[in-house]
């Protein structure tokens, strides 16, 4: 009978964290920025079919990086959680805090359960309030912790560099166009100090939670000509690609 190698718990957890972090770092980043009228989500994503940013409920949206099938599962779980809660109680009783807690529990349990492979995902759950002070942004790393964020936040590959760049540049009271410009600038920077890449409207997935929308559902995708206009690059926007992959 062979004896299994002894692996210390610290080492086992460190290995799992390393595994998850590597998977997340391979993907492109998502940037979430608060502006005057709400919260804008910007992802570098050439696919029109596989979304990284989605609606969860009236005032709540979800952004994710990492392995597509894993965060898609979590997204569907979140929509079901929110709809069930809204049906059982009231639409006002569905909160980003509650959802973030459930996600944290789920990710944390999966991360520390020996039989399961840790999820290679990092999520953002954001809720737009009636005023900028009431906005909530939660970042959920792969291990089940929750980080309460303000202003601007980035997840995914290079999130550290992008995050510190955003921290320096973000200020309160940005307009949507300014916030979008900042997001694109942060995503297109070259981490090795080279020339920044050019990101066109076709390579971006942009959505907002807009508190000024008269509808109950505040989530809205910004597509096509509206996006080009906001980016200040008027042009064709027929960039429909059928590319689909697990990681971009």
């Amino acid at each position, binding site marked *: 009978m062979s004896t299994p190698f002894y692996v210390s718990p610290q080492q086992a957890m460190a290995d799992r964290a390393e595994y998850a972090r590597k998977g997340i770092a391979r993907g492109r980043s998502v940037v979430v920025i608060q502006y005057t009228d709400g919260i804008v989500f910007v992802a570098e994503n050439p696919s029109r079919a596989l*979304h990284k940013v*989605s*609606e*969860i409920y009236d005032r709540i949206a979800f952004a994710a990086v990492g392995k597509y099938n894993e965060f*898609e*599962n*979590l997204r*569907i*779980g979140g*929509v*079901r*959680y929110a*709809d*069930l809660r*809204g*049906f*059982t109680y009231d639409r006002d009783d569905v909160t980003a805090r509650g959802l973030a807690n*459930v996600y944290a*529990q*789920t990710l*944390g*349990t*999966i991360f520390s359960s020996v039989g399961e492979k840790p999820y290679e995902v990092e999520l953002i759950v954001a809720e737009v309030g009636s005023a900028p002070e009431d906005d909530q942004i939660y970042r959920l790393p792969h291990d089940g912790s929750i980080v309460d964020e303000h202003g601007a936040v980035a997840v995914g590959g290079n999130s550290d560099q992008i995050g510190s760049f955003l921290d320096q540049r973000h200020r309160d009271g940005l307009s949507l166009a300014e916030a979008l410009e900042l997001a694109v600038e942060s995503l297109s920077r070259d981490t090795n100090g080279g020339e920044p890449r050019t990101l066109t409207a076709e390579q971006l997935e942009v959505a907002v939670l807009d508190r000024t929308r008269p509808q109950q*559902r505040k989530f809205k995708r910004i597509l096509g000509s509206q996006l080009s206009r906001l980016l200040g690059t008027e042009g064709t926007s027929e960039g429909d690609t059928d590319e689909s992959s697990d990681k971009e």
Partner: protein
Amino acid sequence: MEANTRSTTGRLPAAFLTPGSSSFLDFLGEHSPELLPGNRTLPPLKGAVELPHGTTIVAAAFDGGVILAGDRRATMGNLIAQRDIEKVFPADEYSAVGIAGTAGLAVEMVKLFQLELEHYEKIEGATLSLEGKANRLSTMIRSNLGMALQGLAVVPLFAGYDTDREKGRIFSYDVTGGRSEEIGFAATGSGSVFARGALKKLYRSDLTERQLATAVIQALYDAADDDSATGGPDLSRRIYPIITSITDEGFRRLGEDEVAEIARTVIDGRLAQPDGPRAEVL
């Protein structure tokens, strides 16, 4: 399937993370079947139970859209249970549902139906076709059949703008969930016989939205005239029928001022001619 529905660690139970279904009703059936209206069993009833009932709903199509309207009365036996009940609801951006029958169950059914459409839209990233929506409503009514046979029926009228065919369409239902598409106009509820008769004489497919809204109020007036369970426009309390219109621009509920103005002209006309506008004999 205990493990599927309850979680001991606080993580989302397996039912939440199982891919495949985009239906909220299917999810409810798996996770908490007790919340589905169709799964409730009623104790045997002795005699009739008097519960609030909603009454007349009418729908009519015009060029470029469809109007769905309802009166505001709920009755309980021979009493008026509520004067200002709302029985016409937006189902999503491009459709609306109006309900006649047991008010409590009907409102719950509408809430579930709205959620079903929204849930599908969020999970799939695309909306259901108008036929698909009409079929989902069919399924929901069918699941209520047991209660319907005990006297707690819900009979809706579903209207929407078909973005593929670019026109307004109307679907009517029976208690078994049987669905039929109506051409031109339709009515449901206790006053529907009179409303349909009135619309038969007033309806033309070339009416504008405003003219059709007037015709629909005339029809509701006629229903209220002959059916005690249907309420007409109430000028003293400022309670007017709910008129909604769905076009390619989406769902719109006509403002109270707009409806009040139409209702006033209808009533003014009735002061001169109590039976309303006259049609040619030949």
